[in-house]
């Protein structure tokens, strides 16, 4: 299982890739593996400014549904348009083509409090 070094991780199993004050957010390889086949990523917060840890959407697997929590405060700019017809990208490429939302980050330093790849690995016992 992969955990890219340049990402930050949450205990709810989201990752964030910060580039300046814009971030991509998705779920981890561990999360997609636990959920199984992803069949729908439901985000209805586009255009909204949310606080850190607020729910920005839901990820629906065949068997279960899970809330998605924003790792870092900001405005939800867009959902990955590819996921509408290919939600399985979250399974096959969770850190790449399976990204979920793009966020205009309010306070980039909030990311410092998130877990590093090593800390996340330890957190999930990998």
């Amino acid at each position, binding site marked *: 299982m992969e955990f890219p070094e340049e990402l930050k991780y949450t205990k709810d199993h989201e990752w964030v890739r910060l580039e300046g004050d814009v971030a991509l957010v998705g779920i981890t390889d561990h999360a997609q593996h636990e959920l*199984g*086949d992803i*069949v*729908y990523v*439901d985000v*209805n917060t586009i255009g909204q400014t949310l606080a850190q840890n607020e729910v920005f959407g*839901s990820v*629906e*697997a*065949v*068997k279960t*549904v899970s809330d998605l929590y924003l790792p870092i405060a900001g405005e939800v700019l867009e959902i990955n348009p590819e996921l509408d017809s290919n939600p399985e990208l979250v*399974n096959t490429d969770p850190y790449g083509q399976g990204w979920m939302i793009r966020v205009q980050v309010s306070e980039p330093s909030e990311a410092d409090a998130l877990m590093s790849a090593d800390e996340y690995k330890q957190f999930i016992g990998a």
Partner: protein
Amino acid sequence: MAEMKTVPLHELHQSLGAKIVPFAGFEMPVRYTSDLEEHHTVRQGVGVFDVSHMGEFVLRGPGALELIQRVSANDASLLYDGKVQYSYLPNHQGGVVDDLLVYRSHASEYYLVVNASNIEKDWNWIMSHNTDGVEMENLSDRLCLLAVQGPKALATIQKLTDLDLTNIEYYSFRTGTVAGIDDVIVSATGYTGAGGFELYVKNEKARALWEAIFEAGAEFGIKPVGLGARDTLRLEMGYCLYGNDIDDTTSPLEAGLGWVTKFTKDFVNAEQLKAQKEAGLQRKLVGFEMIDRGIPRSHYTLTDAEGNAIGEVTSGTQSPTLQKGIGMGYVPLAYSKPGTELYVKVRDRLLKAQVVKLPFVK
């Protein structure tokens, strides 16, 4: 919470990489690789479920039929040797103790196959009605059940047996030698709508049978299939799942089990159910498909167009075959006709759905 039980082939499932989850008191494989892949394998080829958590009772003696007639709603006198019947056990409160299969091996020997979560409850219930000393034996811990399902199931198993499988009609069974193993019950039943057989085998022979089936099915791309796909497969057919769609409190008539409720004989709570039928049902278990994008899940609220609650989802999923959300739930009679629009409350939104005729997948 009682300690989780494991099925005899538990270690095999682990070695195949299965994700194991608690289900009905057992540690069961929920998926080996992918729910969707396993689902399509069964619809298009052949897959094998280890459903050894299911319970099996055998009832023997001259009073066996009478006992079954008393506790179950379907008419077991219509059975003949080698015939299987779907039925249920009504309780005295208008609900359902369990749904089950009744197998007649001969006039004074019947097998009952019950849900894992209800083994003890069913045993005690039937025993409490056993006033004529029918011999009852619980085989649940001694038998494994492998469900070999899909359009290639027959070709797979036929390689392993001299039984002529094309002669085993739907909902009937034979006992014979499969893969050199004697006394395997080969039953043309299943919970998937994909066709195939369910094989009952003694625990100690289960591994050999499993391996022979996988060798025989290799040319068809046979795969192990978990409970995840079992649930999407059964829901596409609109089959009830005990604990979700029916339980101790749900009316079997409202659940659509009228076709296995035979008032031509006497059985537990027949009077009350007959009265309910004659008075007319207040609500019905219906199937619905999502029109808006979304996935219904059990316990989500069903509403009318104004958002007034009219019922609850009892089972729901994204149909892998139809690629849209499907579900079942109890609604007032006025909302039960196919084509009727209703709404599912998914998180904070009302998503449009429409009642459809079951099965979802023809």
